[in-house]
């Protein structure tokens, strides 16, 4: 009797597991690796990315996934470190169920991850605007969600021209993204007859006070009668520069990068952010998009879901995160038969007219950039909120 009871229990357990609906219905997972800077200067930004990606994946899985296959996200922190980024990439390539890797952010980290993706033949989706030099390195397996630095800089030159700024002082961060944005802004601005001065003073993404550099720049602003000050940076330094500049009594209008469209920027900078203008993606102002804008509904819907779940609205980077998952979902749906890394890559490359938060994506064998300048809008921070501004002839 003593032996029969445990035997029956074990058999019942096995039987229950076997007939369980989950066991019957569950198909293999489509795994996506996410290789991001969860620690370091971009930690706050990457949290938003993670929340937005998880939100979208949960929605897809609740709808039944892709023909019963659910999507699973596997997150790894690269610690803003080249070695760890590369190690995460190889870890993801090892798991044959992982069909694509998202990230990293930084240009120098991207260069390595793109090289590994190319060698290991796995799709690498990059969600941050990056240096064209990096993008030109390896293109076959790498796809860009955001516009390149060239397009972002062209949009800001348009804004400067619309505001009739003739002289702009650029204060770049000592990071590849900012350096590249500053150089392209200077090139395109000077082509349009503007005078662009790139400051010799720089700052790091980890700096918490830029007053010493700005004190040195203040005489230049006054002497050169600068029309606008371009805070060419990303992450927390943006609002810090604005605060420091206003504390020093400089009233010059401030221009920002697309990275000023992150939700936490206004909260960090407070009143000093008033009047800052920049070009960014449509998700920054979901409720202010034109009624006939083809991506308005997508933005409003995702904004609503984000507010319901996380208590914060949609922003530039959350939009990129949404678009990443949406593009993956769309490509997976178009895959025929067993999904392999190669089949998935080909499907993603054949993305045509796919509507997303940031715009309408089109990829081709010669273009892995997806978005263009027309997918960006002009933004002004007003009353502690992002406000869309329009200029005839420049929109």
């Amino acid at each position, binding site marked *: 009797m003593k032996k029969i009871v445990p035997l029956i229990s074990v058999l019942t357990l096995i039987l229950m597991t076997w007939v369980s609906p989950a066991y019957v219905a569950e198909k293999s997972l489509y795994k996506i690796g996410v290789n991001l800077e*969860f*620690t370091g200067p971009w930690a706050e930004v990457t949290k938003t990315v993670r929340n937005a990606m998880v939100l979208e994946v949960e929605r897809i899985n609740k709808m039944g996934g892709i023909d019963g296959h659910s999507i699973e996200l596997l997150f*790894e*922190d690269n610690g803003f470190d080249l*070695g*760890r980024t590369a190690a995460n990439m190889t870890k993801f*390539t090892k798991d044959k169920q992982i069909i694509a890797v998202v990230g990293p952010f930084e240009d120098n980290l991207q260069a390595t991850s793109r090289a590994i993706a190319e060698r290991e033949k796995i799709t690498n989706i990059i969600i941050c605007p990056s240096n064209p030099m990096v993008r030109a390195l390896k293109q076959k397996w790498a796809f860009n969600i955001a516009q390149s630095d060239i397009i972002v800089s062209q949009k800001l030159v348009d804004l400067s021209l619309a505001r009739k700024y003739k002289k702009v002082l650029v204060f770049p961060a000592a990071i590849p993204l900012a350096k590249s944005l500053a150089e392209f802004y200077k090139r395109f601005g000077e082509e349009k007859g503007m005078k662009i001065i790139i400051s010799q003073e720089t700052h790091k993404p980890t700096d918490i006070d830029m007053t010493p550099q700005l004190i040195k720049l203040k005489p230049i602003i006054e002497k050169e009668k600068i029309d606008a000050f371009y805070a060419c940076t990303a992450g927390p330094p943006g609002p810090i520069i604005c605060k420091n500049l206003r504390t020093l009594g400089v009233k010059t209008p401030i221009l920002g990068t697309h990275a000023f469209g992150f939700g936490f920027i206004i909260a960090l900078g407070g009143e000093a952010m008033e009047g800052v203008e920049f070009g960014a993606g449509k998700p920054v102002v979901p409720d202010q998009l034109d009624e006939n804008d083809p991506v308005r509904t997508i933005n409003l819907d995702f904004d609503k879901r984000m507010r319901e779940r996380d208590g914060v609205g949609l922003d530039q980077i959350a939009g990129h995160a949404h678009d990443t998952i949406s593009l993956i979902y769309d490509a997976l749906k178009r895959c025929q038969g067993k999904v392999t890394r190669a089949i998935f890559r080909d499907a993603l490359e054949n993305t045509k007219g796919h509507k997303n938060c940031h715009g309408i994506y089109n990829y081709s064998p010669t273009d892995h950039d997806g978005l263009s300048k027309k997918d960006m809008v002009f933004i002004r921070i007003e009353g502690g909120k992002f406000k869309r501004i329009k200029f005839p002839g420049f929109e």
Partner: protein
Amino acid sequence: MVETKKNEFRKRDLFYLVPLWLLSLIAPDPYLYHKKEFKKKDLFYLGAIGLAPLIWSDPHFHHLMVLAGIYAILSLGLSLFMGYAGQISLGHAAFFGIGAYTTAILTTRYGVPIFLAFWASAASAAAIASFIGRPILKLKGYFLALATLGFGEIFLVVLRESTDLTGGVIGIFGIPWFSVMGFIFDTYLKQYYLTWGVLVGLFVFSKNLVRSKVGRALLAVAASEDAASSVGINVPRIKLEIFILSAAYAGLAGSLFACVMSIANPEAFSLGLTVLIVMMVILGGMGNLYGPIAGAILLTWLTDILSRYQEYSLPAYGMILILLLIFFPDGIGTRLNVRVIYLIGYWAKKKKRDEGKL
């Protein structure tokens, strides 16, 4: 009563002996074994290095071990300077960077074969170490640490500002794979054997060095510079020589790093790397050539394993380092057996101690 005590003793003996025997296989104690055993254990390690990538045949293992091998070369050099000569350097990331950038510039800008660039990296790091070593090695203790730290920061500023040569903050991309006479190290497995081959070569060289007259002179300098000087050791010269040698190791490691990553960027050679390397030497055990290698492997794998915990990875990493420093103050590669006996004994006797019997 006597019988019970005997049984307890036997059980406890076994309890100690099994893990100690296992640990003695993987972590020899340089103070305890004889020359014969030493050779046998080295052979065991060599076999393990050769077979490990074939047993764990996946790109991630190979790649992580390539990184660990590169860091091990770097920390081996630093260990000679810190552990044997008793000096402090917080600027070794700069020599690592000099090696990486020498390879990057020579191969991408001037088309120099990578094999030559590899040796040129060691030479350039050594030359710069020779240049800066003469003035800064006159300093001691904290002042030397600060001077080397300053050198590391100056190096970063030079990298960021010399845009034409170094590519500034963007860096240099597209560095070719390591190759010798047409044989390209284009897979992680090949890179594994390359890196660990270089490491084994440098290890054998270092081992001979520390057992030579120079090695004994280094130990004397570490114990007391005045005493070493009084017995006829040219202290400034020996310190400079070991500093140059250690920089050359870092240069070689940097060159390999550039080839593996295909990029050289200032961010990769910042203070964070210096701290990591110093931690590898300290956690591995100073004054011991096995220690830095063990430390490099441990920390490389630890950061990789913790990566999945995202924002919690950093606090967890810190906690583990603190615990390792508490329980292994001499490092995991130094007197490991003694520490393990203490730790196992501590837990084994805990109950009795709590009951007040000990």
